[in-house]
């Protein structure tokens, strides 16, 4: 059953990633649609990351005790000042795990 689940999941996910890359699919994207789609990366990535940061134990947590929030703010600051993806990621993760374990 688990094997079947894995294969079905793989099929669904591959379909979602591939279907619009297929040239035989009769679809012409208008400039308006393309403009709308140009917002998909920031919109989706933010929608994934925001709940991770702001919600602890199913509740909104906007306090200094929320390490996720503090380190996210650090990451925002680093991203603005350095514009370096790797540095931002690694440094904010390092601070996060330090706060967590020491």
């Amino acid at each position, binding site marked *: *059953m*688990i*094997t*079947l*689940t*894995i*294969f079905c*999941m793989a099929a*669904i*996910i*591959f379909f*979602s*990633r*591939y*279907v*619009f*890359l*297929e*040239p035989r699919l009769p*679809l012409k*994207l208008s400039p308006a649609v*393309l*403009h*709308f*789609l*140009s*917002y*998909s*990366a*920031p*919109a*989706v*990535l*933010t*929608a*994934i*990351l*925001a*709940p*991770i940061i702001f*919600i602890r134990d*199913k*509740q*909104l947590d906007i306090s200094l005790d929320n390490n*996720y929030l503090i*380190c*996210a703010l650090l*990451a*925002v600051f680093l*991203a603005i000042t350095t*514009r370096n*993806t*790797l540095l*931002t*990621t690694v440094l*904010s*993760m390092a601070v*996060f*795990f330090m706060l*967590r374990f020491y």
Partner: protein
Amino acid sequence: MPLSIAVIPWGILAGSLALDAGLSVLESQAMSAIVFAGAAQLVAVGMIKAGMGISSILITTLLITSRHFLYSMAMRNQISPLPLKWRLSLGFLLTDELFAIIAKNKGPHLQDGRLNRWYALGGGLSFYLTWNIASAVGILVGKNIPNLDSWGLDFAIAATFIALVIPSIKHPSILICVLVSLVTSVVCELLEIPSGLLIASLLAMAVGSLYAKVTREDQKESQEESQGDKQ
């Protein structure tokens, strides 16, 4: 691809949780190898552990993965003219991370305005390899480390996405898009709306592009660009 480092904690978590949910070593690794989707894997593993049926797992998978429809649509003009084997491989590798890199307007992934297929493939494969090695590590060590899921490994994904999103905010409309997405996704999550990710994304995209239209932001931008070309 320096971003690969950021998928390591997330991959370790996926591997160890899969094993924890009762999947065999082979099944846990197969999940990372053929499903290759972080968020969907973690949620599905949680549902398997909770004893939920295959149909509800697949419906949830469809909801979580629906953002990839947006990605493939956004990349259609660049990837659909490529030969089949390129379409299949880049399609399979089209994760959040790869999309974030190759959807940008500028960068080493573009050659004369067209997508450099080798660059995209290299990026995709490095995420794939890292993801699978990290999952294997999670499968191997997960059993010996208690409460790996309480370590906060999910912060890694938040940090990476912040590092990707912030530099992409080049216009007020993108900032508005990000803010709408942030508030809506948190509200949806608090209300436990299952398709919150999709609702928040689409609403944010709509508000962002509408704002750009109303303020004629794109025209200003193209004027600036054409002036820049002349100089």
